[in-house]
C-alpha cells in the first residue's frame, strides 16, 4: 500500500488544494473516473488530485492513471488479509491503520467518493478532509449523501432506463466540472492496420452473447472484408470461452486471419493493440472504455442489465446497439433463463455495421435505411454518441424511431440540468408516435399528483416552522404535521406504480429526504421544505416540457384538436 512518484503527471507550477478521489470499484469505473478527472485537469491544472483505489484494479491500469493523477494510494486487500485466519483482527487493523495514516498525512481539501460501494463509504468516513462529497457513514452508522449529484447518482444509476447521463458526465457533475464544450479530435485511421479487435465477453453471462452468435459475426466480417483480420481479446478466465469461438468449424477457412490474444496481454499491451486497430467491437466492458481512450472507434452491443446511456464508451461517434426487448435493461438481481434480449439483436446488423465502419468509418440514418432490412431493425435501437454542452448524448440512427424512454430521457436531461446545475439544455422536440403520445399524457396525470403532494409537503413543513416559532409551541401539533409529511412521502412513492416513467423523480426525492441538512428540528424542516419546493419545480418543468412537446407534435402533424385528457 505505497505510492511512488515515478512516472506521474508533471505537476503544475503552483498547486493549490488537494482533491482526493475514492474509486474502489472495477477497471471500467476506474477508466471512467480517469476520463472525468482529465476534464478537471483541463480546467483546473492548479489542483493536486490523488486517487484512492484497490490495488487489484488500479495497478494494471497504472499506465493510464499515472497520467491523470498526482499520486495513487493503493488499497491492497490481499496484503491486508494475509494470514488473517491465524493472525486475526489485530494484524489486519494494523495494516488498515498504516494505510489511513498515510492518507491522513495528506492535507485533503475535498474528498470525493465516486464508487458508491459500502466499503468506499466507510473508507470515506475515516479519511480526514475539509469537505466530503459522495456517500459516507456517520457515527450513527447512517449513510450520508449531502451533494445533489451524488444523491442523483445513488437514486438513478442502475435503476430503470431513464437516466439520461453517462457515468463520466455524472462524475464530472459530482466533481463540479461545468464544461460546455468538449475537445473532439479527428482520428486518422489511415495509418492503422485493418484489424477489428473483438471482446466477445462480459462480467456476467446476461451481458454477453453466446459463442455461436459471435462466430457468425466473425465469419461474416472475415468473408466480407478480405484484407481484414480479427483479434479476439479477453482475460485469462475467458480463454476457454475464446476457444469455443476460434475452434468452431465455421471459422476454419479463416483461421489464419484470426488472432486469439485472450489471456495473453496485459492491459497496457491490450491498449497498444487497440491503438493500432481500426475498430473495436464488444459488449459493455472495460475494453470498450480502453478503446475510447485510444481513440479507436467502438461498436458496443448492450445486453442484459447494461444501460447504454450510462456506460457506452465515452467518446464522440461511439456506436451502440441495444435490444428493444420490453424487459431491457433488467436488474442484476432479476432471474432470466431465456435471455430474449440476446435474440433481439440480429448478428447480421452487427456484421453489416462492422463492414460499413471499416469501409466508410461512419454509420448514418440514411445508410441504416438502405442497407439494413426493416425485419432486422425492428427489434433494435441503434445509437451514435456526440457531445452537446460538454455532455455526451446518444442519437438514434433509426429514422422515425424514438421510443418512450428516449423521450423521457431527453425531458429529464433538460429538467435535471436546470434544477440541479442551473444550466439550460436546448434540445429539439422529439417526434411522437401514438404510443409515446399516450405515455406522455399518462405522465401528466402523475406529475399533477406529485406536484400537489409536494405543495402539501411545503404547507406542512411551513406549519411546523410556524409552530416552533410560536410563543408556546405544541409538541403534539408538530408531531401531527410530521406525520402528515410522512404520509405525503408514502403517497408520492405510490405514484410510481401508476406512472412508472416518473420513477426518477420519486427515487431522487426519496434520497434527498433521507439526507436532509441540519442538526436541529428547524434546520431539518427548512431542508424538508426546500426539498418539496424543488420537487414542485421539477414537476412543473417536466409538465410544461411535455405540454410543449405534445403541442409541437400536433402542429407538425397538422392536428388542431385540443387535448382531451383529465388534466386539460
Amino acid at each position, binding site marked *: 500500500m505505497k505510492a511512488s512518484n515515478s512516472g506521474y503527471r508533471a505537476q503544475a507550477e503552483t498547486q493549490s488544494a488537494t482533491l482526493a478521489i475514492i474509486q474502489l470499484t472495477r477497471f471500467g469505473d476506474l477508466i471512467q473516473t480517469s476520463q472525468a478527472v482529465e476534464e478537471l485537469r483541463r480546467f483546473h491544472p492548479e489542483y493536486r488530485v490523488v486517487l484512492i483505489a484497490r490495488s487489484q484494479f488500479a495497478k494494471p491500469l497504472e499506465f493510464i492513471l499515472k497520467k491523470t493523477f498526482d499520486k495513487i494510494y493503493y488499497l491492497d486487500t490481499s496484503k491486508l*488479509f494475509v494470514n488473517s*485466519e491465524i*493472525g*486475526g*483482527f489485530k494484524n489486519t*487493523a494494523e495494516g488498515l491503520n498504516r494505510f489511513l495514516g498515510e492518507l491522513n498525512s495528506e492535507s485533503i481539501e475535498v474528498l470525493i467518493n465516486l464508487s458508491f460501494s459500502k466499503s468506499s463509504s*466507510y473508507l470515506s468516513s*475515516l479519511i480526514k478532509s475539509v469537505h466530503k462529497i459522495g456517500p459516507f457513514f456517520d*457515527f450513527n452508522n447512517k449513510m450520508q449523501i449531502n451533494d445533489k449529484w451524488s444523491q442523483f447518482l445513488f437514486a438513478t444509476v442502475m435503476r430503470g432506463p431513464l437516466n439520461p447521463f453517462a457515468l463520466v458526465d455524472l462524475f464530472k457533475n459530482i466533481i463540479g466540472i461545468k464544461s460546455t464544450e468538449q475537445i473532439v479530435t479527428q482520428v486518422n485511421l489511415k495509418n492503422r492496420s485493418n484489424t477489428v479487435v473483438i471482446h466477445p465477453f462480459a462480467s456476467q453471462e446476461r451481458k454477453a452473447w453466446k459463442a455461436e452468435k459471435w462466430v457468425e459475426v466473425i465469419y461474416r466480417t472475415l468473408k466480407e472484408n478480405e484484407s481484414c483480420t480479427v483479434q479476439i481479446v479477453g482475460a485469462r478466465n475467458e480463454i476457454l470461452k475464446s476457444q469455443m469461438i476460434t475452434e468452431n468449424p465455421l471459422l476454419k477457412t479463416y483461421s489464419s486471419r484470426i488472432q486469439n490474444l485472450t489471456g495473453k496481454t496485459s492491459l497496457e499491451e491490450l491498449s497498444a493493440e487497440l491503438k493500432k486497430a481500426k475498430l473495436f467491437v464488444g459488449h459493455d466492458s472495460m475494453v470498450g472504455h480502453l478503446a475510447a481512450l485510444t481513440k479507436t472507434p467502438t461498436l458496443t452491443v448492450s445486453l442484459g442489465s447494461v444501460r447504454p446511456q450510462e456506460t457506452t464508451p465515452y467518446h464522440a461517434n461511439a456506436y451502440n446497439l441495444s435490444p428493444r426487448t420490453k424487459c431491457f435493461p433488467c436488474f442484476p438481481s432479476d432471474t432470466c433463463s431465456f435471455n430474449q434480449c440476446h435474440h433481439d439483436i440480429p448478428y447480421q446488423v452487427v456484421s453489416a455495421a462492422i463492414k460499413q465502419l471499416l469501409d466508410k468509418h461512419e454509420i448514418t440514418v440514411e445508410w441504416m435505411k438502405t442497407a439494413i432490412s426493416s425485419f432486422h431493425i425492428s427489434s433494435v435501437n441503434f445509437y451514435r454518441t456526440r457531445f452537446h454542452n460538454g455532455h455526451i448524448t446518444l442519437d438514434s440512427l433509426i429514422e422515425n424511431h424514438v421510443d418512450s424512454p428516449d423521450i423521457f430521457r431527453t425531458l429529464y436531461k433538460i429538467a435535471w440540468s436546470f434544477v440541479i446545475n442551473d444550466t439550460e439544455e436546448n434540445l429539439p422536440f422529439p417526434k411522437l408516435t401514438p404510443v409515446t403520445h399516450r405515455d406522455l399524457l399518462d405522465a401528466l396525470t402523475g406529475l399533477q399528483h406529485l406536484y400537489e403532494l409536494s405543495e402539501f409537503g411545503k404547507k406542512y413543513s411551513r406549519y411546523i416552522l410556524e409552530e416552533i416559532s410560536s410563543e408556546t409551541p405544541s409538541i403534539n401539533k408538530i408531531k401531527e404535521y410530521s406525520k402528515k409529511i410522512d404520509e405525503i412521502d408514502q403517497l408520492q412513492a405510490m405514484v410510481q406504480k401508476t406512472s412508472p416513467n416518473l420513477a426518477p423523480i420519486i427515487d431522487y426525492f426519496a434520497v434527498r429526504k433521507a439526507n436532509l441538512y441540519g442538526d436541529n428540528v428547524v434546520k431539518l424542516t427548512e431542508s424538508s421544505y426546500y426539498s418539496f419546493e424543488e420537487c414542485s419545480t421539477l414537476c412543473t418543468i417536466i409538465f410544461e416540457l411535455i405540454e410543449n412537446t405534445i403541442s409541437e407534435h400536433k402542429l407538425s402533424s397538422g392536428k388542431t384538436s385540443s387535448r382531451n385528457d383529465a388534466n386539460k
Partner: protein
Amino acid sequence: MDILKDDLDREFLRIKEKLEKGTALNEEDLKIILISTLHEEDLHESKQ
C-alpha cells in the same frame, strides 16, 4: 478455524449492542465495519 472471522463476529455483536442502545459509534468501530465489508467484497470478487 478463521480467527479474523471470530474476531469480527465478536466485535460486530458489540457494535450492534451499541447501536441498539443509541450510543454513537467511534472511529475504531467504523474501521471494524470497513474491514468486514472489504473482506466480504473480496470473497464476492474471488467468486466472479
